[in-house]
């Protein structure tokens, strides 16, 4: 028993511990989840930014290409003014350059540095374009020479250099931005990995601790279950052993009573037999004395006369009375012992009907004693041994009739009630009652109470008590001298079927 409360304590401890471990596990999982979401978001943003950067770079490169292309087209036109295709190419690239610039402007509108760069670029480009358009116009007018003069101007070379420088700067700025963002991404990735590693470690630790705890707890449970089972088996064995002991003791008492009563009978046969022989012999002696008194009165002494006429018959009478009483007592013991050995057969019994039947059997004695027997109220139904219950109630009612107060009309009532799984029956009379000192004694074998003015051996109530015990019940008496008695019987409502006593 000692290790059972310990297990309970351990159980609550375990629950707390498991809850804490689970909390840690969930926290770790949450952290991992959060980190994953964050990194995903970062990655997405970064990807968009990288794409943006590439688009900006692309636009910058396009711008550069278009500037160079338009330059090439202009130069080609200046060399060969007859080729309209070249002029068209110049115009188209010029248009495309405008579109590309506005595309670039849209892309970098959020970046003030690049916007400033673009602003300068646009100024420079406007310069360049104006110069180029002038030279184209000169060529169209046929002034090829004037156009070449204009082309040879240093200003144009400077402009172009500035433009290239600006474009480089823009590309470099974008590149720097990307490098910076890459670094940022890698840092956040590193953080994510760190979180994953930390959470994984935490999970592993939690899992290990949980596993160890559960394993040890399972072992404990198995151990305590084993202990409990052993205890149960022990208890069952103990109960079985006690029951066997009781049954054995009961059987022994029954056997003992049986043997004793039989062995007591054997010498009693002798006592009674030889008493009868003695009586016959005394009769012969008496007859002889009669003859002697008739024929020779002087031979008959007073002593012989006393012996034959008084002493012998008196002695024989006492011996007879005593042996007869002893025989009745032995028979009572035998009867008790037999009742103890009788197999009980539970059946449904209407107690009221049974009482009425007993009343009919005793009707002669009831009317003789000026007594009435009645059932008061409802009597509960019981399932018990019919013969035993009949014996119990008969004995109690017979006793009530037997010990009425002379001159007072007897009123014997049987009442009853149900108390949970027990039936309570009360046999009450208005007879002479029992001295409270004798309340327990009256149930003992051969014990009687009050004036010994009625025939009986003191067997009835002993039989009643033995039967009540056999039916799994209890019996009690409440009484004051001269005011009647009430015997209260408590029986199980349903007597379980029993194995037949060996």
């Amino acid at each position, binding site marked *: 028993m000692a290790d059972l409360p310990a297990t309970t304590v351990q159980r609550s401890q375990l629950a707390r511990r498991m809850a804490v471990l689970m909390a840690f596990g969930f926290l770790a999982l949450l952290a991992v989840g959060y980190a994953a979401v964050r990194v995903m978001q970062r990655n997405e943003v970064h990807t968009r930014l990288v794409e943006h950067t590439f688009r900006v770079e692309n636009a910058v490169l396009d711008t550069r290409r278009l500037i160079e292309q338009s330059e090439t087209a202009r130069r080609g036109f200046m060399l060969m003014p007859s080729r309209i295709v070249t002029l068209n190419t110049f115009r188209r690239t010029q248009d495309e350059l405008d579109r590309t610039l506005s595309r670039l402007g849209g892309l970098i509108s959020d970046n003030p540095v690049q916007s400033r760069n673009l602003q300068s670029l646009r100024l420079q480009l406007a310069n360049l374009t104006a110069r180029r358009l002038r030279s184209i116009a000169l060529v169209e007018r046929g002034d090829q020479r004037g156009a070449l003069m204009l082309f040879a101007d240093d200003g144009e070379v400077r402009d172009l250099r500035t433009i290239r420088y600006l474009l480089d700067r823009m590309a470099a700025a974008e590149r720097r931005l990307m490098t910076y963002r890459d670094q940022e991404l890698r840092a956040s990735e590193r953080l994510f990995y760190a979180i994953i590693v930390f959470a994984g470690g935490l999970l592993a630790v939690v899992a290990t601790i949980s596993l160890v705890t559960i394993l040890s707890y399972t072992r404990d449970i198995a151990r305590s279950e084993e202990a409990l089972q052993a205890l149960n088996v022990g208890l069952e064995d103990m109960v079985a052993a006690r029951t066997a002991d009781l049954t054995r003791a009961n059987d022994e008492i029954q056997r003992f009573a*049986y043997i004793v009563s*039989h*062995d007591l*009978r*054997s*010498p*009693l*046969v*002798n006592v*009674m*037999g*030889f*008493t*009868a*022989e003695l009586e016959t012999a005394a009769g012969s002696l008496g007859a002889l004395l009669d003859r002697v008194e008739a024929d020779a009165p002087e031979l008959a002494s007073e002593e012989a006369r006393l012996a034959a006429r008084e002493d012998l018959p008196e002695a024989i009478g006492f011996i007879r009375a005593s*042996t007869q009483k002893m*025989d009745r007592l*032995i028979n009572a013991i035998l009867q008790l012992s037999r009742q103890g050995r009788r197999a009980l057969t539970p059946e449904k019994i209407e107690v009221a009907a049974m009482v009425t039947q007993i009343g009919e059997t005793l009707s002669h004695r009831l009317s003789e004693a000026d007594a009435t027997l009645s059932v008061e109220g409802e009597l509960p139904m019981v399932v018990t041994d019919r013969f035993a219950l009949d014996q119990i109630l008969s004995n109690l009612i017979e006793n009530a009739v037997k010990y009425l107060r002379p001159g007072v009309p007897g009123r014997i009532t049987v009442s009853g009630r149900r108390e949970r799984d027990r039936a309570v029956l009360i046999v009450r009379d208005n007879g002479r009652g029992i001295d409270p000192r004798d309340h327990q004694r009256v149930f003992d074998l051969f014990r009687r109470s009050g004036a010994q003015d009625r025939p009986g051996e003191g067997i009835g109530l002993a039989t009643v008590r033995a039967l009540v015990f056999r039916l799994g019940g209890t019996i009690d008496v409440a009484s004051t001298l001269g005011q009647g008695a009430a015997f209260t019987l408590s029986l199980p409502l349903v007597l379980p079927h029993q194995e037949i006593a060996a």
Partner: protein
Amino acid sequence: MNAPQSVNIIMIEDDEGHARLIEKNIRRAGIMNAIRHFTDGTSALDYIFNDTSGPQLNGPALVLLDLNLPDMSGTDILARIKNSDGPVKRTPVVVLTTTDDSREIQRCYDLGANVYITKPVNYESFAQAIRQLGLFLSVIQVPDLGDERG
């Protein structure tokens, strides 16, 4: 025909008083057959099976048997008699005892007892029962054991 006089009565009864009362009342009933009295089972069995004048070797007999004996149970003697091979098997056995337990009575009849009588404590009825047993014995036919041997 067997003359009743030739039948020996073997009485196995440990209580001397009972034996005396039984004998007296049998005699009162007018039965004059020889009565051999044994107070224990061992000597009684020895007489029945081994004595030259016993039923195994000489003449018919009738057994009066008490069940409560000091050295063995009366039912054992009954079983020995009824399970033997020789002429003793057919010897009538009257069980005369204080036990009136129905199981005991049944057991004795199962073992082959011919009559079961309970000794009443009331002497008058006891004496009467024994006298009636005497009358019963005077008319009972006992198998002639000699015929079988011859």
